[in-house]
């Protein structure tokens, strides 16, 4: 079955082809921005919001930024394609945020214990795990702006992780920090059957996918 695809009788594409190389396997392009989350949208006032990087020493070492401190850091405005495991992809989304490189560099300089993996943690209890290499090297941001406006709560505002080269559940909404870890620990969806890495180009949707 894997070698010989099953042809769906009478099925034809009804969509204009996406530009070559932009749509990962099994995805389709949408112009909307669908919302997916497992529970109510948390609402944390900016006065009590902070972002913390905890070290791989069990969090004994850590660095924290208030909302204002985060806003004062150098900003970037990535324009990226995003890919949701529920099959939609959206091209050329415009974000504003702080590179995770900036935050991690500051944390490590301040003596926070380094680790090969991170677990992003969020308001509402959501977590997701990522190799450290997937959030460094200009590939990930803590984003607080979308399409020229503050990021809306249902899309993860005040701030979400943005890791566009992986399926979008890795871009944790309502993010409050990163826990550095010596080894990989599955997050919320990863414990419920979703892939630990989630590369859309390799179609790593669920545990057991190659």
């Amino acid at each position, binding site marked *: *079955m*894997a070698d010989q*695809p*099953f*042809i*769906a*009788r*009478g*099925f*034809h*594409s*009804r*969509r204009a082809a996406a530009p070559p190389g932009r749509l990962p*396997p*099994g*995805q*389709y392009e*949408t112009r*909307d921005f*669908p*919302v*997916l*989350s*497992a*529970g*109510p*949208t*948390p609402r944390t006032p900016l006065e009590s919001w902070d972002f913390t990087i905890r070290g791989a020493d069990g969090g004994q070492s850590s660095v924290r930024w208030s909302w204002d401190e985060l806003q004062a850091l150098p900003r970037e405005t990535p324009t990226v394609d995003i890919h*949701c495991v*529920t*099959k*939609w992809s959206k091209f050329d989304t415009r974000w504003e945020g702080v590179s995770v490189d900036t935050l991690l560099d500051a944390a490590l300089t301040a003596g926070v214990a380094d680790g090969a993996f991170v677990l992003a943690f969020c308001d*509402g*209890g959501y977590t997701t795990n990522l190799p450290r290499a997937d959030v460094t090297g200009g590939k990930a941001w803590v984003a607080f702006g979308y399409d020229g406006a503050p990021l809306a709560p*249902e899309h993860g505002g005040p701030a979400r992780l943005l890791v566009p080269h992986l399926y979008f559940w890795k871009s944790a909404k309502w993010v409050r920090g990163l826990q550095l870890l*010596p*080894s990989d620990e599955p997050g*919320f*969806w990863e*414990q*419920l*059957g979703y892939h630990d890495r989630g590369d859309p180009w390799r179609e790593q*949707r*669920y*545990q*057991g*996918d*190659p």
Partner: protein
Amino acid sequence: MSEAVVERVAAATPGPPRLEWQVATVVSVQQETPRARTLVLDVPQWPGHRAGQHVDVRLVAEDGYQAQRSYSIASAPAERTVALTVERLDDGEVSPYLCGVLQPADGVEVRGPIGGYFVWEVAQGGPLLLVAGGSGIVPLMAMLRHHARADVSARAAVPVRLLYSARTLDDVIYRAELEKLADPPQVEVVLTLTRDAPPAWSGYRRRVDRAMLEAVSWPSSAAPHVYVCGPTSLVESVATLLVDLGHEASRVRTERFGPTA
């Protein structure tokens, strides 16, 4: 731990088995509403599912073009076949195929079940509050059917209320079955019609709001398990209202459908 050791450990521990694509056979189809159709599937290697889970459907065309979408399972875990109810979106490409072209005895590729959070089992207990908008009723119907199949004492221990928002009475999916569940009452079913209601309609005729939720829901002190499924606008507002009414956020589970065209 050195990287070499990590790799050896990883290689020695086999990962979870892959969810493989399988060709299911359409046993029957049933038109539920003018826009929604149920496909009853025989899936040869079905591992079983929990109420609330979904499957991925893949369609491959002659020229190799493929499309995938996710659809909620409507059938109870104990049923031998797997039922999907699909709402037709005219500008889509998968839902018009599933709602129009696919016929009994046809094959269709599926893999699943998927999703382990928006699930409910009788053993979790109740009370159980279900809030549906439109075709968001589908995974909640699997929960209702699961409840209906439980033995009498287990069923009696879990009171269930369903608040279901639809545009018109004709858009109410599973209407006859819901009426049967409500009389004699195994489940309290409350409908609200947001666009158009028959002249004799005595029920709600507006979007779900705070007053409606207060009237239909148990108080937060009863700590119901709450499952909300529907379009984003409904799920956002209902989940926020429930938290405002004192329900613990961790007891309110949501599933939103984006466009699965």
